[in-house]
């Protein structure tokens, strides 16, 4: 179908408008409110709206310009015939008139049916009028609403798809039966699995079977464990029985063995007793022999001892004789030595005497020397003292003459000189009356009230607030000065006189001699102090030296008295040499004396030893005599007891034979006892007894175990555990099979569901391919080669509900949902969808089809708008009649399309 011409009258703003359309593309331009959209609506309603429609729809169509009803006349060509459909929308009196050349005109219902048939929508008439309206409006794109804002394809698209499918143009997606199976499969899977299909739903057959299997398994395990316990109990009873049998047998063996060993023990003890008896007898006989032998040995020893004693006695006698001779010899030697000692003693005495004399000489000479020194010192002291007394007198006489006195004189002298100078010059006196600070005259400070004489050019420093009085001549008259000079002379003379000096120079000379005297006195004092620290001690020392000298002289005289040739040493040194020689002589004499005494002592000691030896030997000889007597007595006794040598040998032989016999017997018994050691046997018996106890314990333990196990084993329940175990095992197997069956069924259903989903997608994609390919054809000019869309399928009605756009210029973004696209892209995709649907529809009808675009690209920018042109041209080339309503028709100038401008609205 292609629309050729439309006439609209009394339709809202349009009073009377006729527009003719090109078969390919017509662009209708016009400003806002010139009635473009009204024309758009009028064409749509002229084709699909019931002319008798009332209510709001009809009210919205009325015009304010005239009282006449709205009328729309659409001229269109389909199947090679040009039809004119004229509709008057006057409510209940609304009418339709359909005419075509060479065909009878149709009115009313037949006309409506025919029109619907021509539009290919006759089955949507009547009750589905609204659906028809909506479906057809798929080809009428209103301002920017090619896709709903939610991204859903507006409902008519789905219905149009159905129509296309029914025509066979888009193929079949799924039959009702398919959908029915799909639905029941999903319901069935819902019954088995949770929503996300990863586990069985609670109470589902498989879950119930699984639970039942777990329960059955637990019961079977418990029952098997119980059986195993019972088997263990029974086996343990068997083991206990075996143990009992073995232990009892072992006990019997042990008892027999014990009895035998006890007999052995009795025999062994007997043998041991016999051995002990035999041993005792042998021992007694051996003792007897030993005693006899000992007595014989004793006899022999005694005899030997006696012989030795006799010999020893003879030796001692010889020794005694020798000792007596030595004693005598010693006495003679001692006398000689003593005489020698006496001579040595005398020599010592002489030497001592000589030494004493020499020492007395030394002493006397030393005392004399000492005394002489002290006497000389005494004379020196006396002389010094006299000298000092003279000096002291001089010093005493000059006592008043002091440095101060000299200074005073010197000052007086100076004063006098000053006075005389003042008198001689024009002298001026100054007096300081008062001052807060000092006044100096030639640098010398003047005290308050003092008067100073300025005799010549002088420098006076005056501080602030000083009041000085200057008076010529120091404030004194010349006579005053003369008086003063006289006074001063007098004073000076008086003082010199007092000092005993005629003038200052003499006084100073005297003072120097006084100080010299003092210095000398101090020197003498110092020398005296050195000579005598303490004068009393010096006197005592002096008097003692006199005494000592006297004593030494007397001692020397005493020693020299009677000496035939007394030594006469010449001086102290000779005396000292004499002393040294005396000491040497004395030492020599003393050594000789000590030697003589030692010799005496030695001889005396030797003599004492010899005397003692002599005495000891005498006593020994006497004692030995008693011992030999005793030995002789004892030997006689033994011989009496033991008999003579022959008798003794006979007796010894007898005793030896007896002992040997008894020893042999004892050894035999001992061997028997050793072979049957009762201790060993006892140990064996103890071991056996221990074994017996252990075996008894084993029996006891086995019996207890047996009783305990039997009690447990015979604890009878209601049901036989073997049967219970068998039943539990059987139930477990049943439950396992049941679970396998249930899970198998669930798995089968799940597989079905998965396959249905998978295959549905495959079919859908395959079936949607013609549409998708066509949409891509329209999108390529806009988004470039590779631009494609992916249908999003609605599982419920097996149709698709929206599209996803894949843009080659943004590969990373993948397929984009419509809702995230910009407004421009959204309306472009929508337009492509509609053009593709129209193209498919065109193919089905093999004739033209009209798509009306009413400002469909309000959100499209100028660049994209330019790219829209190839899309629209493509539609046109495919045989689609495109009608574009735009307030900006110049944008479409590139299409080279027919153009109609809407007339300006009439002004009322």
């Amino acid at each position, binding site marked *: 179908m292609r629309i050729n011409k439309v006439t609209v009258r009394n339709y809202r703003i349009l009073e009377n408008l006729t527009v003719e359309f090109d078969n390919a593309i017509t662009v209708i331009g016009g400003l806002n409110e010139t009635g473009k959209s009204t024309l758009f609506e009028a064409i749509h309603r002229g084709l699909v709206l019931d002319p008798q429609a009332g209510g709001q729809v009809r009210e919205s169509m009325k015009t304010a310009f005239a009282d006449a009803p709205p009328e729309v006349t659409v001229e269109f060509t389909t199947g090679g015939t040009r039809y004119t459909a004229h509709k008057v929308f006057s409510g209940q009196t609304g009418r339709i008139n359909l005419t075509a050349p060479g065909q009878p005109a149709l009115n009313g219902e037949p006309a409506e049916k025919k029109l619907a048939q021509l539009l290919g929508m006759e089955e949507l008439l009547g009750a589905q009028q609204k659906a028809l309206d909506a479906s057809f409006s798929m080809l009428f794109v209103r301002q920017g609403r090619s896709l709903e804002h939610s991204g859903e394809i507006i409902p008519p698209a789905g219905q149009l798809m159905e129509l296309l499918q029914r025509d066979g143009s888009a193929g*079949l997606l799924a039959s009702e039966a398919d959908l029915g199976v799909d639905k029941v499969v999903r319901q069935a899977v819902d019954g088995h699995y949770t929503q996300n299909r990863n586990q069985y739903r609670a109470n589902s057959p498989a879950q119930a079977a699984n639970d039942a299997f777990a329960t059955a398994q637990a019961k079977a395990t418990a029952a098997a464990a119980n059986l195993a316990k019972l088997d263990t109990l029974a086996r343990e009873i068997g083991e206990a029985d075996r143990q009992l049998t073995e232990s009892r047998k072992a006990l019997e063996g042990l008892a027999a063995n014990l009895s035998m060993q006890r007999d052995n023990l009795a025999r062994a003890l007997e043998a041991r007793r016999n051995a002990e008896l035999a041993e005792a007898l042998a021992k007694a006989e051996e003792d007897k022999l030993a005693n006899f032998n000992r007595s014989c040995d004793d006899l022999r020893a005694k005899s030997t001892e006696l012989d030795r004693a006799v010999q020893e006695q003879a030796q001692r006698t010889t020794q005694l004789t020798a000792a007596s001779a030595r004693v005598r010899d010693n006495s003679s030697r001692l006398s000689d030595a003593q005489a020698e000692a006496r001579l040595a003693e005398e020599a010592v005495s002489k030497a001592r005497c000589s030494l004493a004399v020499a020492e007395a000489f030394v002493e006397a000479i030393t005392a004399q020397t000492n005394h002489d020194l002290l006497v000389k010192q005494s004379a020196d002291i006396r002389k010094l003292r006299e000298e000092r007394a003279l000096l002291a007198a001089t010093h005493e006489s000059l006592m008043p003459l002091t440095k101060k006195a000299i200074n005073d004189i010197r000052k007086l002298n100076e004063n006098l000189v000053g006075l005389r100078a003042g008198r001689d010059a024009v002298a001026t006196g100054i007096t300081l009356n008062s001052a807060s600070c000092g006044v100096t005259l030639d640098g010398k400070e003047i005290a308050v009230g003092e008067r100073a004489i300025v005799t010549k050019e002088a420098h006076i420093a005056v501080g602030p607030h000083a009041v000085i009085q200057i008076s010529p001549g120091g404030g004194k008259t010349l006579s005053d000065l003369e008086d003063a000079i006289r006074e001063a002379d007098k004073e000076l003379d008086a003082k010199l006189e007092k000092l005993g000096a005629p003038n200052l120079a003499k006084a100073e000379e005297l003072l120097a001699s006084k100080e010299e005297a003092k210095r000398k006195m101090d020197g003498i004092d110092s020398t005296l102090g050195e000579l005598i620290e303490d004068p009393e001690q010096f006197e005592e020392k002096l008097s003692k030296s006199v005494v000592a000298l006297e004593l030494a002289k007397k001692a020397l005289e005493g020693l020299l008295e009677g000496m035939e040739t007394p030594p006469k040493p010449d001086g102290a040194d000779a005396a000292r040499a004499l002393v040294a020689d005396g000491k040497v002589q004395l030492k020599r004499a003393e050594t000789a004396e000590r030697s003589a005494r030692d010799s005496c002592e030695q001889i005396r000691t030797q003599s004492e030893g010899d005397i003692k030896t002599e005495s000891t030997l005498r006593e020994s000889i006497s004692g030995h005599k008693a011992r030999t007597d005793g030995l002789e007595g004892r030997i006689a006794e033994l011989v009496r007891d033991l008999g003579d040598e022959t008798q003794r040998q006979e007796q010894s032989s007898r005793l030896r034979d007896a002992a040997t016999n008894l020893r042999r017997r004892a050894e035999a018994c001992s061997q028997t006892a050793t072979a049957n050691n009762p201790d060993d046997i006892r140990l064996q018996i103890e071991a056996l007894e221990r074994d017996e106890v252990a075996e008894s314990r084993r029996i006891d333990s086995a019996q207890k175990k047996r009783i305990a196990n039997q009690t447990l084993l015979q604890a009878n329940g209601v*049901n036989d555990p073997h049967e219970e175990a068998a039943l539990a095992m*059987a139930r477990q197997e049943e439950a396992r099979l049941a679970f396998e069956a249930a899970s198998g069924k669930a*798995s089968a259903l799940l597989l079905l569901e998965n396959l249905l989903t998978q295959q549905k997608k495959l*079919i859908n994609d395959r079936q949607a391919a013609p549409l998708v390919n066509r949409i891509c054809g329209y999108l390529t000019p806009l988004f470039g080669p590779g631009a494609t869309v992916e249908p999003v399928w609605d599982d419920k009605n097996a149709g698709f509900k929206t599209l996803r756009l894949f843009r080659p210029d943004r590969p990373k973004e993948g397929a984009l949902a419509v809702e995230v696209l910009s407004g421009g892209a959204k309306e472009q995709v929508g337009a492509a969808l509609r053009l593709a649907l129209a193209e498919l529809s065109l193919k089905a009808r093999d004739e033209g089809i009209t798509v009306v675009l009413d400002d469909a690209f309000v959100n499209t920018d100028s660049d994209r708008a330019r790219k829209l042109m190839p899309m629209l041209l493509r539609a046109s080339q495919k045989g689609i009649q495109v009608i574009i309503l735009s307030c900006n028709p110049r944008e479409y100038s590139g299409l080279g399309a027919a153009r109609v401008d809407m007339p300006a609205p009439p002004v009322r």
Partner: protein
Amino acid sequence: MAVTFIHTADWQLGKPYSRIDNIEKRAILKNHRFESLKKIGELAEQHGASFIVAAGDLFDSSQPTREDVSRACDIIGGFKRPVFAIPGNHDFGGPGGPYSHDYFNRERECRAPNLKVLLTAEPVEGEGFVLLPCPLLSRHETGDPTEWLRIPGLADRFAGKARIVLAHGSISTFGTDAADDDEVGGHSTPNVLNLEMLDPSAFDYIALGDWHGTRRADSHPCAWYSGTHEPDRFPKGDDYKSGQVLLVQARRNSAPVVQPLSTGRCRWHIMEHSVDDADPAARFLAAMNATVAGHPADSTLVRLCISGSLSLASASKLERELESQKAALAHIRIKDLTTTTPTDAEIARLGDAAVNPLVAAVATKLRQMAAGNGAEAVTARAAIRELFNLAHETRA
């Protein structure tokens, strides 16, 4: 002088049949054991048995319910001849066992005064016979219960009388047989009877209990297990017979004359069946009928192993048939080794790509997966069945 008596054992009254899921069917099977018991009385009457010996395990549990005790006593009381019983491992004679309960003793006195439970190992003399009971006083007797029979000269006291031993337990020549069994029952706890230790000529008949099939014990020339009167397990081999009692004629110093008499109501069948796609349900039904041979379904138990390869449709039909058998039979245990492989036609029907493109695509994919042998292939085959069934349901 010969004595004629009936030897029975292992009644296991009150057996709960725990492995059978359906409570009602358990009750039916439990009931069969009581009903079969009545048959023993009838046979005793019919064959002129002087008395009946029951060699242990009269009750399945050591604490039977009062109802079971009363019902048992009621039936035994109707036997009109003495019934000598020893306790077995299930109904052991010591404390905690059923015979120590006042209720039992009152009911026995009142309803079954002919029932003598022999709780002590001492001879019981009757006319022409002496009974030598070897009762189990606890479930696990570690000793040999027949040991007391080895006392020298014991048997000499009963000159001329048939010496009949009653014992319960396994014999050393063959072991217990329950551990790997499909159904619980008929096995022995290890109460071992050393019959070879007994003087072969000293005893004329040894009535044994514990083994649930009828068999002669080869460790003694005149020892027999009567087996249970009512089968309670699938047979272990061709020679396994149960659901019988033994009619015995015993005489001193003579070999006993032993005749098995049938008493059981239930039939336990082991069945193996192989199927192919040629009408498998009908052929299975025919095979089942041949096995059951007209025996009432409520006393028929089957252990079925079924194998073969089936189409989806055949598998569904066979499944329905098996469900029917499950409902009808007292019990059926199925080991299903069949594999389901959809035919091309089935696959085509399942999804015509032009009509149902989705299901068709899924079916094709599943078929590829099912071709293998691994776990995935098993799941895929199951998924094909599910898809087939669901598509079928959806269309319906």
